[in-house]
């Protein structure tokens, strides 16, 4: 039951998003499409992108779920400031984010000496790609999940506690299942953002085939030498994203109606 007129702006919004995609598709040289997108370099980049995005999404879930819990379920002075700070990678142009990462994990960075001592070189490795992706994607998961947690409220958690469930049990058996739709859509957002990540990666991780050259970086390279191939690869990225987003369960929660 939504007002009829709502469909008009909704269609306009859909058009704003879909028209450019159509515009892009209209420029694809469909004749060479298969050849262009199945070259060795293309497949290497695609596989690297999928693997790093997966790892960074897992990292985002592992770190982001606790962060969202702390933000949504506790109160402490300075929480507002902390929330703003945590959301910052959202607003930072990715290239600046990459510089910031370089200033932190680079050889001359904040932790450079410590990492050197440990014999770890983070920057310019696949680890750096994952770090860059996690850095830019984490806020997505946190924001999306914090919203779900707040909307879900604490009533069921309180009931579970009175039934003797420890906080960990409540988290595992009540909180997480209840906000699962929010968690899934947060993870999808994080994965999508990781998949499309470019600026921070090229700055912090560089662009080496097989190691740090993810699909967006590969597309960037192609743009210089072969714009057609770049557009074709972009379309591949779009298709991969559609599949990933489409795979995420979007089943609406049973609300049970009125009693």
């Amino acid at each position, binding site marked *: 039951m939504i007002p009829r007129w709502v469909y008009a702006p909704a269609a306009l919004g859909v058009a704003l998003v879909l028209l450019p995609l159509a515009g892009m598709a209209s*420029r694809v040289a469909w004749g060479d499409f298969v050849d262009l997108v199945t070259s060795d370099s293309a497949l*290497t980049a695609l596989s690297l992108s999928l693997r790093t995005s997966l790892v960074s999404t897992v990292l985002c879930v592992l770190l982001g779920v606790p962060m969202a819990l702390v933000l949504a379920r506790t109160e402490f002075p300075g929480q507002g400031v902390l929330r703003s700070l945590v959301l910052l990678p959202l607003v930072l142009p990715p290239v600046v984010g990459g*510089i910031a990462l*370089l200033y932190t994990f*680079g*050889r*001359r*960075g904040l932790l*450079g000496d410590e990492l050197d001592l440990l014999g770890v*070189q983070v*920057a*310019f490795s696949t680890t750096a790609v994952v770090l860059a992706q996690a850095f830019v994607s984490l806020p997505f998961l946190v924001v999306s999940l914090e919203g779900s947690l707040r909307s879900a409220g604490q009533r069921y958690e309180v009931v579970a506690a009175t039934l003797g469930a420890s906080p960990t049990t409540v988290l595992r058996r009540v909180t997480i299942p209840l906000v699962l739709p929010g968690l899934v859509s947060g993870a999808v957002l994080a994965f999508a953002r990781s998949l499309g990540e470019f600026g921070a990666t*090229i*700055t912090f991780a*560089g*662009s*080496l*085939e*097989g*190691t740090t*050259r993810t699909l967006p970086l590969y597309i960037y*390279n192609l*743009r*210089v*030498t072969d*714009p*057609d191939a770049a557009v074709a690869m972009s379309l591949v990225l779009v298709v991969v994203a559609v599949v990933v987003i489409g795979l995420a369960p979007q089943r609406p929660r049973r609300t049970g109606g009125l009693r």
Partner: protein
Amino acid sequence: GGPDDDTTTLTVYAAASLTATFEQLGEEFEAEHDGVDVQLSFGGSADLVTQIQEGAHADVFASADTANMDELTGDGLASGDPEDFATNTLEIAVPPGNPAGVTGLQDLAKPGLDLVVCAPEVPCGAAAQAVAEAAGVTLSPVSEEQSVTDVLAKVTSGEADAGLVYRTDVLAAGDGADGVEGIEFPEAASVVNTYPIVSVEGSDEPDLAREFTELVLGATGREVLADAGFGPP
């Protein structure tokens, strides 16, 4: 795929405008050296310098200008002296059919003409500014792009009537429906951009690095570069 145990990897950092030529040279080098894998990383010269400064593992660095090369040598990160291996000059790029009828540098100052150039902060922008100054022409571009690629994108899409880019870029973009037409102009000769190359200090493969540098500087390199429109150093 990634490097295997029995292959040696040579990592080359090169300015983005060298993408096509260095990919070709990399393949030649691999063909000549069994078990050597040439890894190429392209980007803005300034970005690449920063990355090397922050610990990126590179064996060879080819810059699109001398300023960034000086930055690297100044930090003591170059092994030996850089050597110039190519030059490049500006050309006017217009959409296919040249709808605005541009014939020379003077036309770029015409009111109503949508001109795009590189921002003065990036090498091609600095060159454009210098050329215009030398010719006494005042350019009022509708956009100062971050890179040559961005200028070309505006021109190929017909968004801009003309752009100032390097000769090599015009050739690389091709002249098909999605390409550009290049218009040479005499004033370009006043500003020549020089490409230096150097082995990076601390390279694991100093010999291979030197050999690659030599390949670029040698006859093969010169031929490939000339095909792409680069001038001799």
